[in-house]
């Protein structure tokens, strides 16, 4: 039992950056095709990170390095915890902690763009935090356990019980994956209203660590999407993969369709969506129970 857990965690740690990098390359190719151009090679994100690792790191202060390293380690830990079959609530608590570390890295630089990015990131966290916790609770309602190991042994896919949670989660994934219209904290390089927000004062190796952490995060998020479909039946994994691809494509599409909104619009919209979809779903589940 312990061996399988460790093997799963190690597999995640090795494979996640490969999958995450490829996915993010795919995202860039999709975006380029949607804009009617050829776009970068599929493995462009790997080239970028390789280059960043080869550059000299400039820092504003030494605490920054500590926070960024902490961010990466905590994110990896979060993902490993999830894929090794740990407690969903703990996964999300650890996730919010890793995000806080990233925000602290930005705060510590005292640069105006970084701090603005940090404040916006905190605001974003305030928007999606309720939904991530609700997802864990939703799984608990559906299958009676917080443990990922028990959840994947379910009789029926969780989506049958908690479709509202799924909608809410896909909605907050826009924030989590830093997609427009909710890419307030760090945008793509092309949209330079606030330079690069959170990561403005990071460079070289530090920035590479952040990129890596985001790949891990991406894989973790996709894993959670897949969780909605997985049952004890092996065929369900196929469905999960199809669902993940659909959601991923949808996120890229949304990214290219909508312009950025103000933070207060984001707050209102996300909280409303969460309340309406997840809240109603929770209420119905509670009545049926």
């Amino acid at each position, binding site marked *: 039992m312990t061996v399988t857990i460790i093997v799963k965690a190690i597999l995640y740690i090795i494979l996640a950056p490969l999958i995450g990098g490829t996915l993010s390359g795919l995202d860039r190719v999709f975006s380029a095709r949607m804009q009617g151009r050829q776009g970068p090679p599929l493995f462009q994100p790997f080239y970028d990170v390789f280059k960043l690792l080869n550059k*000299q*790191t*400039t*820092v*504003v*202060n*030494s*605490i920054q*390095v*500590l926070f960024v*390293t*902490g961010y990466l*380690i*905590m994110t990896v*830990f979060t993902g490993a*915890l999830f894929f090794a079959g*740990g*407690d969903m609530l*703990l996964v999300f*608590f*650890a996730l*919010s*902690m890793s995000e*806080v570390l990233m*925000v*602290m890295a*930005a*705060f*510590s*630089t*005292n*640069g*105006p763009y*970084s*701090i*603005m990015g940090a*404040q916006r990131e*905190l*605001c974003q*966290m*305030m928007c999606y*935090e*309720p*939904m991530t*916790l609700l997802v864990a*609770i939703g799984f*608990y*309602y559906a299958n009676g356990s*917080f443990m990922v190991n028990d959840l994947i042994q379910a009789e029926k896919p969780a989506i049958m019980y908690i479709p509202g949670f799924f909608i809410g989660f896909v909605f907050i994934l826009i924030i989590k994956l830093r997609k427009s219209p909710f890419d307030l904290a760090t945008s793509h390089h092309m949209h330079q209203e606030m*330079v690069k927000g959170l990561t*403005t*004062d990071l460079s*070289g*190796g530090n920035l590479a660590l952040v990129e890596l952490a985001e790949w891990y995060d991406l894989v973790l998020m996709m894993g959670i999407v897949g969780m909605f479909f997985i049952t004890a039946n092996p065929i369900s994994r196929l469905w999960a993969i199809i669902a993940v691809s659909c959601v991923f494509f949808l996120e890229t599409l949304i990214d290219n369709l909508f312009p950025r909104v103000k933070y*207060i619009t984001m*707050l209102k919209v996300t*909280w409303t969506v969460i309340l309406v979809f997840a*809240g109603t779903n*929770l209420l119905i589940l*509670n009545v049926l129970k």
Partner: protein
Amino acid sequence: MAIIIGLLKYASPFRSAVIMLGGFTIMAAAIYVAVNVLMSGDTSQFMYLEDAEIPNHFIMAGEVFLMCLVCFLSIKYKKYYAILISLVGTIPVLWMDLSGNAVEGSTHLRIDTFAAVMYLIVGIVGILICIYASGYMKDYHHHHTDVVDRSNYFLALMFVFLGAMFGLISSDNLGWIYFFWEITSVCSFLMIGYTRTEEAVNNSFRALWMNLLGGVGFAAGLMYTNMYLNMSNLSEITAAGASEVIIIPVTLFAFAALTKSAQFPFSRWLLGAMVAPTPSSALLHSATMVKIGVYMLIRLSPVMQGTLTGVMITVIGGFTFFAASLLAITVSDGKKVLAYSTISNLGLITACAGTGTQEGVWAAVMLVLFHAVSKSLLFQTVGDIENCMHSRDIEDMHGLIIKLPRLAFIMIIGICGMFMAPFGMLVSKWAALKSFVESGSVWLVLFLVFGSGSTLFYWAKWLGKICAVIHQSFELEDITPRSEMVSIIPLTTMIVIMCFAFPWMSGNMVQPILSEAFEGTIENVIGGSDVIIMMIMVAMVFMIPIGSRILSIGKNSKMTMSYVAGVNAGDDRHYIDSFGKERALYMSNWYMEDYFGEKKLLWPSIIVAAVLVAVMLIVVVGGNI
């Protein structure tokens, strides 16, 4: 009783050395008693005092004295409504005692595990605050020359207060509890009004009438139990189980507890308590005053399970948690943020206690423990920072890690203790979520998840302010006296130790409380593998700084300025404008006042909560009489 008399004796000497000596003696006594209780297998010890006549007369005299004191001060400051409430609360109880309607012959004292845990909190945290106060008051009067120096009186009050706390925790007789309850109300009133400015007087009277109103509720419950149910003990009520008759006094006690623990709609007294010197706010917020309320609720929670009272208490608590955490976003005064966070956390504890489930009580006790330590530490640090920088505004704490590294570091630990992942509060929040989900209260789950989001926001932005590293700035003089550090450093250590020790605490301190409250063996609330994972997280948090030192990450990096679009004036805090002038650059935190501001949110939430309380009282009490 011996402890109380000891306390009163120690209250008269005023020099800080004596306070420290006395404080440590009391602390040692409290720890000794608590450890004894925890170690002995026989947990609940009831004591019947044979010669109860003298203490009873003493208590009666005390009640009359308190009443007269309130009347006198009310007339002095022309706040006549306080007299009315005080009279309504005290006279019927006196009449009952004198006319012999009170039930005699039951136990007076009870010392069990829960009392022992509370002893530890009051004994350690409370005494540390008193020690802190002895140093703080000197600085305080150094800065506030306009305030008459009555610090001896103030310190004496603090000890009286702690004495009342010990008394309240050990009492089982409701009449005695009522007496100590009133002492704490009046003491807090006197402490808040310490500076005697107009604002202080107004706020202290607000605290007084709200708490006395709770006292009236308590008195009503007390009379009802004595005269109709023929019970005079708290333990008898909790043992009686939920029934229609018993729920009436329980509701009344719960109402009193709501006022004490400053839930909406009674939160404003706690916010007003900010005008007092820091030690008193630390005392009121963390270890004592507000904890009495939740102490009562946790005691009552087995009875409340599944009743309307329980549901209403949970909803009020959940609502308070959410609304107060939104309000905390909008204020920048350090102490006020702490006050709102106290209200919000107490809301969570109240909600947990209200569910009446085992997990709920587990989470509530854990929250009480962690909150007491972290919050008193934070209050003391804010007080020190105020003494050093003459401001307690969060905006002024920008770059604190450079200006006052020692205090900043302590503060970071305190704030992390309040909300970050492996630290204690989150463990309890996790249990709270589980208990809410199991009790099937949808609204509560929603309150909790949205409240956690906003809690994260206001703590993290404060943490960020502290962590900002500003170049070419210099350390301020750290004038924190040694006596304050004597108090702060143990508290910091305790937070760190409690992170590692929580499985042990759960097994040895909280589980026995559960088995006392629910009678029977209780399965472990927190599972084995989760504990291991949490331990790994805790270990990692402490390993990352050490590890990165060893790996010397970032040694090869080049230092630069932060990016200010190319016109950084060199110190990251000034830029050069288009006329070639240097301009200051400052990034303020977000407060979102237009959306969650006090003006917009405070009164509506008070009204909503007031309606909830009214519904609870009318339906439960009115419906069952």
